[in-house]
């Protein structure tokens, strides 16, 4: 991957293969208010419209959610944790990209370390989430058993981890190739995809288990 195939922004000194301590003037473009806003607002607006998909799933399951507080507790936690993992993964990949140590391959030590760590974190965290959501749900008057909530949490959590890893790598690579700054694009895309698919996965698992 050479610097010459970097899209649109030939003058940008922050490419994969350039020195970290570059002279200032040309960097200006990346940090102008107009550029940041114009890159992000259309993207965020489009993704908000997409989010209505998971919003309407929530609306559809409104009664189930209000009847089973554990599931209502699980919703933001499940999404939030997936978002955390995605954010760490993307942020690290992007920094690797700028420092010149990234390549889109599982044999790259940096990428592999991130992938393994994400799965380890997911297994640890979604187990804890299941137990906590069950306990809080019970306090709020829910009737779901520990086994049910834990199974729902772990299964949908690990499916989410697969999603996080795949989407992070694909979107960092895609925004690099298109010539957009991954910091502006990858995190919105990955958190949104995880939110939407996360809600779909969660309620798919819920409707199988319950």
């Amino acid at each position, binding site marked *: 991957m050479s610097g010459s195939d970097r899209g649109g922004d030939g003058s940008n000194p922050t490419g994969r293969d350039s020195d970290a301590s570059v002279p200032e003037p040309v960097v200006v473009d990346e940090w102008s208010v107009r550029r940041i806003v114009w890159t992000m607002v259309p993207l965020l607006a489009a993704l908000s419209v997409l989010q209505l998909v998971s919003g309407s799933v929530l609306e559809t399951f409104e009664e189930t959610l209000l009847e089973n507080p554990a599931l209502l507790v699980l919703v933001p936690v499940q999404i939030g944790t997936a978002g*955390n993992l995605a954010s760490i993964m*993307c942020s*690290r990949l992007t920094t690797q990209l700028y420092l010149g140590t990234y390549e889109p391959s599982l044999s790259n*030590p940096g990428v592999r*370390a*991130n992938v393994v760590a994400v799965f380890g974190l997911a297994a640890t965290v979604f187990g804890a989430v299941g137990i*906590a959501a069950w306990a809080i749900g019970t306090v709020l008057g829910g009737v779901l058993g520990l086994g049910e909530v834990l199974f729902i949490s772990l299964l949908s959590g690990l499916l989410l981890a697969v999603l996080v890893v795949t989407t992070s790598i694909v979107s960092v690579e895609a925004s690099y190739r298109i010539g957009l700054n991954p910091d502006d694009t990858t995190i919105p895309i990955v*958190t949104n995809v995880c939110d939407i698919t996360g809600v779909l996965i969660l309620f798919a698992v819920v409707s199988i288990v319950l």
Partner: protein
Amino acid sequence: MNGQDTARDVYRQALPVILVSLIAGLFAGTILGSETMRAGIESVPGILLLLPAFLATRGGVYGSLGARLSTGLHQGIIQPRFELDRRLTNAIVASFINGMSVSVFIGVVTYFALFLFGGDGNLLELVGIMIVAGLLSAVLMLSVLVTVIFVGYRHGLDPDNVIGPVVTTLGDVFGVLFLLVGIYVMGVVL
């Protein structure tokens, strides 16, 4: 420092912050499941519909600000100091504009979605709730995020491991809470 980290390093660095944000996430979930919030969900049509979009905006706007500052710090073109640096100011102003315009947009789109689904939403109410919640979020997120990144960086913490948890933690807990405030304020105003 990223290239040499092993999976174990990443796991160890990320776990504590993720667990903290997990606890905060449970708070958000508990607020969401509370009597008051359920009453709000029932009294204002469209709240569940806009909830994911609203929460996701926090991640999108402020997560990318964090990632941008992190990359800037790693590159050495931003200093971890609270001064009126042009890049820093631009990044913050742009994030504020992004956050507010997308919040308003979500209110409008939710109204039209409700209209299409045959519901009876109130445009003024939805947009008002989004403006209140968006503004409060922006003030809180911008001040806390920049502080945490800079102070953490000066203490040798890799911002890349900190941004996600901080953004989702604050974003979810205060997003849900500020949504409640917005519902309350618009209930008083209208």
